[in-house]
């Protein structure tokens, strides 16, 4: 708790990087070989080598071969951090226990104290995270000038305080100990100054020929200032070339500037044509879309109307799983379906594709078309981001035909990126020029083409034709290792810039901390080409907005206002009504049913690979599959049987003459004879990313970036996948309490019988508003009097929570937020595999109905803070007790670790530090921690605390000001992040509080009420709004 700010002296762990990993799962390596490699090395060096070996897949495979699933204590992060240090730590631990005295602690006071800083009180700064699908306006918590928590900007019209896994994870991205810290030239440590010299010479030299041979390859430019700087640079160097490339977005209509503005809060019928707009920021406008979608499903105070979501999908996503009606189509069928839907509705004169649909599909099509027509102007069709351009074309057509434009959707002068471009074409021409030797300087800014460029372009060999190659990036990565110059980039939390969010509003990106490793940004590169090369990014951004901000009075004032608020007024797009001019497209004919389809998608956790080294996101179980630490080829159960493989077996996928080996995993509701590959894995470098998953980019060619066809075959080997949730088929006969054949999920059937999930259709709900609370054996309700003991009285504050299952879309933002707020440890793949992941909050996913076409129920699950907590009763040392305000507190430093509480917790929400999981060594990670939460050490139980540190903070303030705590004054981390506002926290003794209202709602039910635990967290039962014409959605009936 010493008070040094800003002064960031970071030692790097020199042996962080794992050894080179290979995409092949089972590269042979026996323990014998390991010993061989270790022969001769002794003492500390020995352990270091162990560290290096540990974490590589060969090693894991080797250990696993020797003792399957018992390898944990060798390859968990602990061992990776080194054995000797561990000793020290555990001894120090024993010390803390009070047997010995704690060491003397130094204090580093300031020399001159900054004005605005009150140590112990955090500051909040508005900024924004640049992201290819649109910037995310943020409000960042800073403790002594260290950013320690990233959250959405609550005042911003676009995301209204919500965030997503990427923006939450970007914090750890900044503190990533693997970030490059020095400029290097040909692998030797160099200086920025050296580079600038060379760069400036080059610029001077090429001034004459207008920058001929000067090529810039950047990630998508989202900053208006950057755009301005480039256009000016272009003037100075007309022949210099700029190529933007975003692996995830290249080739999409969005990248070319097609960015409709949806207002789902006005839509009764929402149709997603392979558009996964509910699962994460990978879809443009995610935060707003989810909020608006959820707004129409609250059924708050007497409201009995809600929207209806149709999803046509080629791969299972949370969007489809939330949909009332979900149609599974093979990827190549989607455009045809869009065309036929357009034809049926009469959109832009589309003609039927003539493709022969199955009866079920036709039924779906007709019902959908009918429903759409019926709700013209109050409906919206959303095209898939990664689909054939024709889908966007048809979707727009339908919206126009239905008169949705201007009501539920706006087109027109809205651009997703600052300067849209045909990325694939540009990249191709760049490669062509490279091969033609036209490129003498290739400057790659915040991009990693050697890893993620289309495989057919053979970028690596092409790049070497350039006379000089420069790479700027947070991590060296594949490209940085190859390029002549590698330069450390500044993280967005370290630098000035600006960015547009989905709705066009401009936010200033202001730094929260001095660049940790002296990183620079693209701004500096472009600025260097201009007349005043040394103008800082800060000045550049100010210059860009000087005009706008000077309008309403004094610039300085408005500038400060903009910085403080987090956006610049009046920069939002004006909703256009004229459709975007899209080339009239024709739907490509679907491929035959027996060709094997391969779908590429950016990963839900690591996106295109940029977050691969962020432990939080690696360990985060993905929606639907609950897979962490790896990616896998997702197939349907039927396809799995057809291929004659089991989960975890290795498949060799061949497409366009390229091969990749990948483990296989079942995804419920995946189309037949098709596999989904998530990008961003199979990295070589990084203590976290290294060795995880396989590289799907190896299959990806420039003509088939998001979808292709190929063949698969089983090859030898197994790959241990870390799936955090068991999934069994229910084979029980009626007698054994089962029902349905093996196609149903055992977990779902049990969850249903036990009343864990309670849902009804809108009609059922109208008929019986109390459907969630019939008092039957398993799904009973709280019985206040069912006890021998007098009830404990809670006067004053009584904290409680309500979770709306109808709104939750399972996007995981809450979990990552919880990670950051509560200093939760990352435990590593092996530990997750044996079930020891430490997330305090998990999202339970149950697949209802036939597993080939299920509906999912997402249930955020954390400590329920039971009033009659079973865990407390059995703790022999009273380490978990109840507070007068009804919190179930876990007192870490009292815990001896009997784990009895965990056994006796019906919700299994307690997490135990089986080994020393928290990292007590890595300096940069220490800076990231929340100073208000203890870092738990080995042998201690932990769990959700309702963010007690936030409660205490507010309580103290309120007490000092001699007032009651206001409703909504305390916001838990999960609640804060949630884009669908599914989580509400507050005082249940306060009749006016929102949480009280929600808990009194007829749909509110306590989980496992029949054990009489009296949870303080209640769930609001789901209500679905199916189309009566389609087969009754498989909703389990209440009661």
């Amino acid at each position, binding site marked *: 708790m010493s*008070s040094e700010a800003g002064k960031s002296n970071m030692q790097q762990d020199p042996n962080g990087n794992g050894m080179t990993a290979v995409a092949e799962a089972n590269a042979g390596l026996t323990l014998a070989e390991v010993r061989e490699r270790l022969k001769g090395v002794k003492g500390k060096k020995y352990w270091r080598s162990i560290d290096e070996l540990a974490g590589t897949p060969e090693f894991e495979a080797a250990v696993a071969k020797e003792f399957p699933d018992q390898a944990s204590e060798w390859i968990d992060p602990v061992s990776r951090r080194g054995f000797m240090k561990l000793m020290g730590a555990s001894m120090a631990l024993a010390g803390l226990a009070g047997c010995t005295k704690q060491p003397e602690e130094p204090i580093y006071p300031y020399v001159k104290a900054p004005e605005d800083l009150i140590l*112990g009180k955090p500051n909040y700064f508005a900024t924004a995270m640049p992201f290819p699908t649109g910037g995310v306006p943020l409000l960042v918590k800073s403790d002594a000038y260290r950013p320690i928590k990233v959250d959405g900007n609550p005042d911003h019209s676009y995301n209204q305080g919500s965030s997503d896994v990427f923006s939450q994870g970007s914090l750890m991205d900044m503190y990533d100990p693997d970030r490059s810290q020095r400029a290097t030239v040909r692998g030797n440590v160099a200086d920025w100054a050296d580079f600038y010299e060379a760069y400036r010479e080059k610029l001077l030299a090429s001034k004459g020929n207008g920058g001929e041979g000067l090529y810039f390859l950047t990630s998508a430019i989202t900053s208006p200032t950057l755009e301005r700087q480039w256009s000016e640079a272009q003037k100075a160097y007309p022949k210099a070339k700029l190529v933007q490339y975003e692996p995830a977005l290249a080739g999409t209509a969005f990248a070319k500037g097609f960015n409709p503005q949806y207002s789902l809060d006005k839509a009764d019928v929402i149709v997603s044509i392979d558009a996964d707009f509910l699962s994460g920021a990978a879809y443009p406008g995610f935060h707003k879309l989810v909020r608006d979608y959820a707004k129409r499903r609250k059924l708050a105070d007497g409201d009995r109307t809600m929207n209806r979501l149709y999803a046509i999908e080629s791969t299972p996503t949370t969007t489809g799983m939330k949909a009332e009606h979900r149609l599974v189509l093979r990827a190549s069928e989607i455009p045809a379906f869009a065309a036929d839907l357009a034809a049926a509705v009469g959109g832009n004169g589309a003609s039927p594709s003539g493709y022969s649909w199955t009866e079920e599909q036709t039924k779906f099509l007709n019902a959908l078309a009918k429903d759409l027509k019926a709700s013209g102007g109050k409906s919206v069709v959303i095209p898939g981001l990664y689909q054939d351009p024709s889908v966007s074309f048809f979707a727009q057509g339908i919206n126009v035909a239905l008169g949705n434009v201007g009501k539920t959707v706006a087109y027109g002068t809205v651009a997703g990126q600052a300067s849209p471009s045909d990325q694939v074409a540009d990249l191709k021409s760049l490669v062509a020029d490279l091969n033609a030797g036209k490129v003498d300087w290739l400057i790659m800014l915040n991009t990693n083409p050697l890893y993620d460029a289309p495989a057919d372009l053979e970028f690596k060999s092409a790049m070497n034709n350039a006379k000089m190659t420069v790479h700027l990036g947070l991590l060296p990565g594949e490209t940085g290792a190859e390029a002549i110059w590698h330069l450390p980039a500044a993280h967005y939390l370290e630098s000035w810039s600006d960015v547009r969010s989905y709705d066009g509003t401009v936010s200033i990106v202001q730094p929260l901390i001095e660049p940790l490793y002296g990183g620079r940004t693209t701004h500096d590169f472009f600025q260097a080409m201009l007349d005043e090369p040394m103008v800082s990014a800060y000045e550049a951004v100010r210059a860009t907005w000087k005009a706008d901000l000077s309008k309403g009075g004094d610039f300085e004032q408005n500038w400060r206002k903009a910085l403080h608020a987090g956006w610049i007024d009046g920069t939002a797009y004006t909703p256009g009504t004229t459709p975007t001019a899209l080339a009239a497209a024709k739907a490509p004919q679907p491929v035959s049913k027996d060709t094997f389809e391969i779908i590429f998608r950016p990963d839900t956790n690591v996106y295109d690979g940029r977050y691969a080294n962020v432990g939080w996101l690696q360990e985060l179980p993905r929606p639907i599959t609950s897979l962490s630490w790896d990616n896998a080829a997702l197939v349907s159960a039927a396809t799995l049987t057809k291929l004659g493989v089991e989960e975890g077996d290795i498949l060799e996928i061949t497409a366009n003459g390229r091969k990749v080996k990948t483990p296989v995993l079942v995804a419920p509701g995946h189309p037949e004879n098709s596999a989904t590959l998530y990008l961003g894995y199979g990295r070589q470098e990084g203590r976290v990313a290294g060795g995880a998953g396989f590289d799907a980019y190896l299959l990806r060619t420039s003509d088939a970036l998001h979808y292709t066809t190929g063949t698969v075959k089983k090859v030898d080997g197994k790959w241990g996948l870390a799936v955090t949730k068991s999934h069994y088929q229910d084979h029980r006969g009626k007698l054994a309490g089962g029902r349905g054949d093996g196609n149903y999920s055992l977990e779902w059937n049990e969850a249903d019988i036990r009343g864990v999930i309670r849902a009804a259709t809108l009609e059922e709900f109208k008929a019986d508003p109390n459907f969630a609370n019939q008092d039957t054996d398993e799904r009973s309700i709280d019985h206040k009097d069912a006890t021998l003991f007098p009830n404990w009285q809670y006067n004053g504050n009584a904290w409680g929570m309500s979770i709306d299952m109808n709104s939750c879309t399972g996007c995981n933002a809450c979990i990552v937020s919880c990670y950051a707020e509560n200093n939760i440890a990352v435990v590593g793949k092996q530990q997750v595999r044996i079930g020891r992941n430490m997330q305090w909050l998990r999202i339970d996913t149950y697949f209802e109905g036939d597993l080939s076409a299920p509906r999912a129920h997402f249930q955020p699950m954390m400590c329920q803070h039971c009033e009659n907590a079973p865990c407390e009763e059995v703790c022999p040392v009273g380490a978990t007790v109840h507070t007068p305000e009804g919190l179930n507190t876990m007192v870490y430093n009292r815990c001896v670790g009997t784990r009895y509480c965990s056994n006796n917790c019906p919700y299994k929400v307690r997490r135990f530090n089986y080994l020393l999981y928290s990292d007590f060594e890595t300096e940069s990670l220490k800076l990231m921690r929340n100073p208000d939460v203890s870092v738990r050490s080995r042998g201690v139980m932990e769990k959700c605390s309702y963010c007690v540190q936030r409660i205490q903070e507010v309580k103290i303030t309120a007490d000092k000001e001699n007032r009651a705590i206001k409703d909504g004054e305390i916001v838990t981390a999960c609640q804060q992040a949630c884009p669908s506002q599914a989580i509400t926290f507050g005082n249940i003794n306060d009749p006016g509080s929102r949480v009280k209202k929600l808990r009194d709602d007829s749909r509110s039910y306590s989980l496992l009420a029949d054990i009489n635990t009296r949870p303080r967290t209640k769930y609001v039962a789901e209500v679905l709004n199916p189309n009566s014409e389609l087969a009754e959605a498989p909703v389990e009936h209440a009661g």
Partner: protein
Amino acid sequence: MAQIFDRSSNALARMSLVLTGLIVIALGVTLDGLQRSPWVTRQGQRPDQPVPFSHKHHVQGLGLQCQYCHVTVEKSSYAGIPPTKTCMNCHAQIWTNASLLEPVRHSWATGESLVWTKVHDLPDYVYFNHSVHVNKGIGCSSCHGRVDLMPLMYQQNTLQMEWCLNCHRNPAKNLRPVSQIYNMAWEGPSSQKPVWCAVNGEQADKPTAQSVDCVTRDPAKNGTQVASLSLDAVRLPGMGAVSAQAGAGAVIPAQLSYTKFTSQEDLGRFLVDHYKIRKPNELSSCEVCHR
């Protein structure tokens, strides 16, 4: 066959039995003493500091206000350790060549922090908040002792959990008027030195400290003055940061009806009510200090 044991062995055997018992007891007593001993608690120890800073000289001698250096004590959980600048405010003019102050000047010149050793060092899992204590009537000296009499800083109390609980279970015995927080010499009311307190417009959203006025001279007689650390000494640059509370009631409306207190118990009870001090069971609940 002869005896195996000598006659004396009987006495020996029985004595050893008794002794074993005694030793066990003695051991227990020793360990119990040890865990509370200064060796463990660091009570009264004066660690080496870069500069032998004397609170006695600065507080008693020069009459510096506590918050002149510990600026954030009323606003934040940390009281705050003064930056080198604070020292230089004066020592740029006085004792400019004193060798004792060399580290200060060095720090000022180089911009490197002075590295002090924590004297009051709580374990990292204890979350203590100065501001709430100060605002609710716990004076500096209640925990830190007579700092104004300490030439070198040391830890007066054990700072062990039992010591914290001792007060959290019965705050009344340590509460004092907020106006007396920085009064190192405060001893609580007695029949010789009674305290008069009055409630002044109690209402929600008005900090409790401001709604209670306490004085140490009978307000009935005139010449009333606020009891607080007398500040006749030099007023120093940057000394604007005198606490609102200390100032509170500097002007006492005449119509206030004062109650006279001659014992800490009565005063404590009075203040517990009017400072809205939480109940003992709330104050001794785990999450208050551990998170």
